[in-house]
């Protein structure tokens, strides 16, 4: 009934004409670089914020806070020198020689008058937070001392109980888990699928419109059935997307697998240099007090489970075929991209919904709401993948979700094929929704 060798020819054309384009090569190789660059930038910003020491003059009218503050951080907190006036300090801040000053009023401790931090705008929220926590700690310590509280109670206050995060895997073995990491991974993977579905769907639609307006579609349909052309295009573009994602995942896997050994290698080298220099200095040969091993096991948290990659591909392919068959039908129904807007909106709504709900689903992956969204076929390609990333989804839910998705994919494909068949040879007037329904019924 359907001629697979001709579909194969169409797939080959769709695939090879796209993979060879400059834009494909650029987006494939630049996107990871951009992401890496972006992540590097954020890390650099975070680190550099800590590295550049800030200098704050402490004007302490209570006479009790300066000393503990300078004990806490001698580079950050400076005493006011006898010769300095507040105006001089203000001038120094204006000239960026100082970052700011903190003013503790005489009644700061007795009546709780707020301290004031005057600064030139540098430092940002992180610095302000750390300043506040320093002041809080120091104040608490003074109050505890003033009230002659026993050592035991002071210890209680200083205690920082640890909470270890362990997630149970399928085999029931506890693994170290980083909730924040899997949460942001879940969000990220949702964005990834959203743009994948949408971007490649739009590429497909544009190509259908192009075939229609260039009229080549009439020559093609004098050789193959419209459904064969549509399937060939869907699968061809899908393969392009899979190629791109495959390359990205392979790069990511390569980076995460190599990261630990490479990092270890550099650390060992550094250590080697360090030990050499130490032993050269220390002729007595006393054991240099150098940590011999740095724990790099945290890097393992970044590695991705192959089963997850499999699910990612399954949901992406099914979701892509479902949504893109609609995009193909829209492309066939209109004569230009502008005309497609009217039909795009109702199609966009469910994908957008899935995308916007995704944050809440990553937060509460096992809520009823998340379960429904990850089973509903119009949102499951995004939401189920996020759930799998963030929590342990029972296998029957994943299976049910896949079955529902396949069923609605088949339904959409049949519906779209009918609109596509009628649409590709119709020119001129933009059809109404009513006419589209007529095309579906006719066939």
């Amino acid at each position, binding site marked *: 009934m359907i*001629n697979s060798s*001709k579909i194969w*020819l*169409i797939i080959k*054309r769709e695939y090879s*004409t796209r993979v060879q384009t400059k834009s494909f090569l650029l987006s494939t190789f630049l996107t990871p670089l951009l992401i890496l660059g972006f992540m590097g930038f954020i890390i650099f910003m975070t680190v550099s914020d800590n590295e550049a020491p800030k200098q704050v003059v402490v004007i302490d009218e209570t006479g009790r806070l300066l000393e503990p503050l300078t004990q806490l951080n001698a580079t950050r907190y400076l005493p006011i020198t006898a010769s300095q006036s507040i105006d001089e300090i203000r001038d120094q801040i204006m000239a960026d020689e100082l970052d700011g000053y903190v003013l503790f009023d005489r009644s700061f401790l007795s009546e709780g008058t707020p301290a004031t931090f005057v600064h030139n705008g540098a430092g940002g929220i992180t610095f302000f937070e750390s300043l506040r926590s320093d002041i809080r700690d120091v104040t608490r310590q003074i109050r505890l001392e003033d009230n002659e509280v026993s050592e035991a109670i002071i210890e209680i206050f200083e205690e920082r109980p640890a909470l270890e995060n362990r997630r149970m895997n399928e085999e029931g073995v506890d693994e170290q888990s980083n909730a924040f990491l899997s949460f942001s991974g879940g969000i990220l993977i949702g964005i990834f699928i959203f743009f994948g579905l949408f971007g490649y769907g739009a590429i497909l639609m544009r190509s259908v419109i192009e*075939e229609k307006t*260039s*009229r*080549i*579609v*009439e*020559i*093609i*349909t*004098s*050789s*193959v*059935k419209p459904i064969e052309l549509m399937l060939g295009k869907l699968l061809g573009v899908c393969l392009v997307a899979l190629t791109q994602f495959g390359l990205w995942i392979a790069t990511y896997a390569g980076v995460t697998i190599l990261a630990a050994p490479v990092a270890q290698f550099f650390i060992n080298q550094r250590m080697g240099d360090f030990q050499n220099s130490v032993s050269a200095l220390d002729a007595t040969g006393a054991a240099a007090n150098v940590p011999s091993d740095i724990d790099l096991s945290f890097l393992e948290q970044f590695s991705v489970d192959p089963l997850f990659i499999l699910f990612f591909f399954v949901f992406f392919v099914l979701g892509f075929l479902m949504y893109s068959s609609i995009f193909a039908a829209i492309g066939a129904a209109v004569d230009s991209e502008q005309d497609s807007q009217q039909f795009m909106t109702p199609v966009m709504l469910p994908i957008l919904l899935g995308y916007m709900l995704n944050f809440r689903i990553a937060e509460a992956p096992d809520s009823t709401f998340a379960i429904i969204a990850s089973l509903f076929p119009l949102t499951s390609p995004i939401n189920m993948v996020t759930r799998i990333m963030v929590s342990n989804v029972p296998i029957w839910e994943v299976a049910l979700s896949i079955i529902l998705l396949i069923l609605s994919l088949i339904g959409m494909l049949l519906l779209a094929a009918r609109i596509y068949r009628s649409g590709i*040879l119709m020119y001129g007037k933009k059809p109404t929704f009513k006419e589209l329904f*007529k095309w579906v019924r006719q066939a």
Partner: protein
Amino acid sequence: MSLVIDVQNVSKHFGKATAVNQVSFEVEKGQIFGLLGPNGAGKTTMIRMINHILNPDTGSISILGEPASPKSQERIGYLPEERGLYKKMKVFDQLMYLAQLKGLSHQAAKNAIDFWLDRFEASTWKKKEISELSKGMSQKIQFIATVAHDPEIYIFDEPFSGLDPINSEMLKDVILEEKKRGKTILFSTHRMEQVEQMCDDICLFNQGKAVLQGNLRSIKQSFGNNTILLDFVGDSEFLNELEGVRINNRSTNFAEIRLLEGASAQNILQVAIAQAEIQRFEIVQPSLQDIFFSTVKDTKVAD
């Protein structure tokens, strides 16, 4: 003679509009068959059904003895009215793709394309994209796409529209040459004067119906010698005085006059001589266009 295309009682509706209405005709092997009629008469819909792009609502279409199918599509070379190729695809890749879609193997497609590119002196365009070619060049490529798989039947929808005189002449030559090789050619056109010399059989379409069909020569004969071609110098006022005639074509010094019932050629000659200097007076068979108009008028009266 064997039937190559057999159309029986075919109708096709689009919503409430009837594009093709109970049409039957037959095309024999080795013929040039003309599907004629004004724009919107249903020619393109008919051609799409023969190409198995559309299916008839009722009636049947047989190609080379079998119902129209994906198999029959491979034996037809189709040049649609609206030409189109992938603009961003290289000439050779594009021709390979289209020929392989018609069922040719990779090697057979390559040989055929090399042959045709060579014949049209277009081998140097192989690596060019269609968007880099001139209109005349891309018309040649379009033509190669139609013929590369060496089909038994050619279907050309308005083949001469948009062709420059050189390509037009070339296409005529190829059509006549393919006919000699025993190929069957069906084409449609609304410019009837262009095809009068080429067609063996014709089918006249009007408003979805086949209003007249058969062998072109016998059709013309059946209308008899009832048309006068007149070349003259002088005042053309006398043409308005003629009675019992219809003037199909007139300009400052030429008139094509159709004799209606009871009119006499001799009377017309006398009136003309009296008022102008006559340079040609010839009694001929009516033109295809004239036949079409009379037929359409008759069917309208019959309705």
